[in-house]
């Protein structure tokens, strides 16, 4: 959910863009990370672990921990907490290590 009013901050959002999450069209803003756009759309499960298939979500949000790896435009293991959203991006849930095509 997006914050509309804040006592200290103004949020200057970029152009509205559409992207795809597991084939479903979602809306986000240019300049924000993929993680931010997915969170705003209520998506918290970003992938599943290799062995135990446990759900994986965002943890550090600054590119340190690798909990948020997803497949972006066919490329696996993208840290979506630091990767910026672009119009038309195809973002997919990653299972385990992902595979290079």
């Amino acid at each position: 959910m997006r914050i509309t009013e804040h006592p200290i901050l103004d949020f200057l959002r970029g152009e509205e863009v559409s992207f795809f999450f597991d084939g479903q069209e979602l809306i986000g803003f240019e300049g924000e990370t993929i993680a931010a756009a997915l969170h705003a759309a209520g998506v918290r499960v970003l992938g599943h672990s290799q062995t135990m298939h446990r759900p994986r979500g965002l943890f550090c949000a600054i590119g340190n921990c690798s909990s948020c790896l997803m497949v972006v435009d066919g490329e696996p293991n993208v840290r979506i907490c630091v990767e910026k959203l672009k119009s038309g991006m195809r973002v997919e849930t990653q299972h385990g290590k992902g595979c290079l095509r």
Partner: protein
Amino acid sequence: MKEIEILIIGGGPAGLSAATAAADLGANVLILERDDKPGGQLVKQTHKFFGSKKQYAGDRGYQIGNFLIEECEKNPKIEVWTETTALGIYEDGMVTAEGQGKHLKINPEKIIVATGASEKMIAFPNNDLPGIYGAGAVQTLMNLYGIVPGKRVLMIGAGNIGLIVSYQLMQAGVEVAGIIEASPTIGGYLVHAAKIRRAGVPILTSHTITKAYGQESVEGAMICKLDEKWQPIPGTEQDLKVDVICLAVGLSPLTELCFQADCHMKYVPELSGHVSLRNKYLETTRLGLYVAGDVSGVEEASSAMVEGRLAGVCAAYSLGYGNDVAPKLQGEALAELSELRAGPAGQKTVKGIMKLMDKGGAAC
């Protein structure tokens, strides 16, 4: 290949302060910043800083960040490479980095490592569920992107970060179910704690989380009270329906590059993890390599800025710059650090630093 006098790795409060200090004395400086703009974690700090005027007390964190960035931008001796991640520091002094898909080589005369710290995790069942975040992640989502992490939050840790982020969650319209803290006392400043209690949020000391639960993401948490030996007291369990668990349980220095550069390292609990041995001028056992900010021991942004300034002055001075003023500037920075560490929290840091300066440690 890029030749440079001083290479600074990390463009947060320590790195930016180091750059300005070194460039002011006449040295040419290059900053490597992995993010798309410098400022480090100051960009998401909306609270006003304490300390003295010299450390920008009274200003909000992001305003301080903007000020430091402006100072660097207007100095022609400072170059900043954003979206560039340092990869390694080699025996011959060469540094490699990845920047915008390219492999880069840099040959610096001096290096200042100012890579900061990363969030700690604690052990409890289901601590890997989506909906469990480091406190910094919550700040990033909320204060940078204007997105709330959920509806109802359990905060773990009543240090300054736990208290400040709880308050920021309330400012963003999120309910904070409570703050729990395993130790019997609140670690953060009481002025922050009082603000939170006034808003009706309980701060439960001697409490811990026993598990998180939920199918695909967090749906709740079990907490319980601890006795004086930090053992769970049976019958004190409480079930909290929350969709977010926020961990504010401390940071660890991001010292991979120091290890890799073969600096002599030591585990110092008072400084929150493994840190490089170094002398009082922040030079490590690898000569010409300095550390500044959280990477040299986790503290806060105020001391990171002063350490950055000290490392910048020392690196430039060692290259022959500022012979007339550098000793005075070093003395001032050291005095400011002592002043910042004069309180009870600072005593822990001082004790940790003493361990780093032991005999057999860095050449002092």
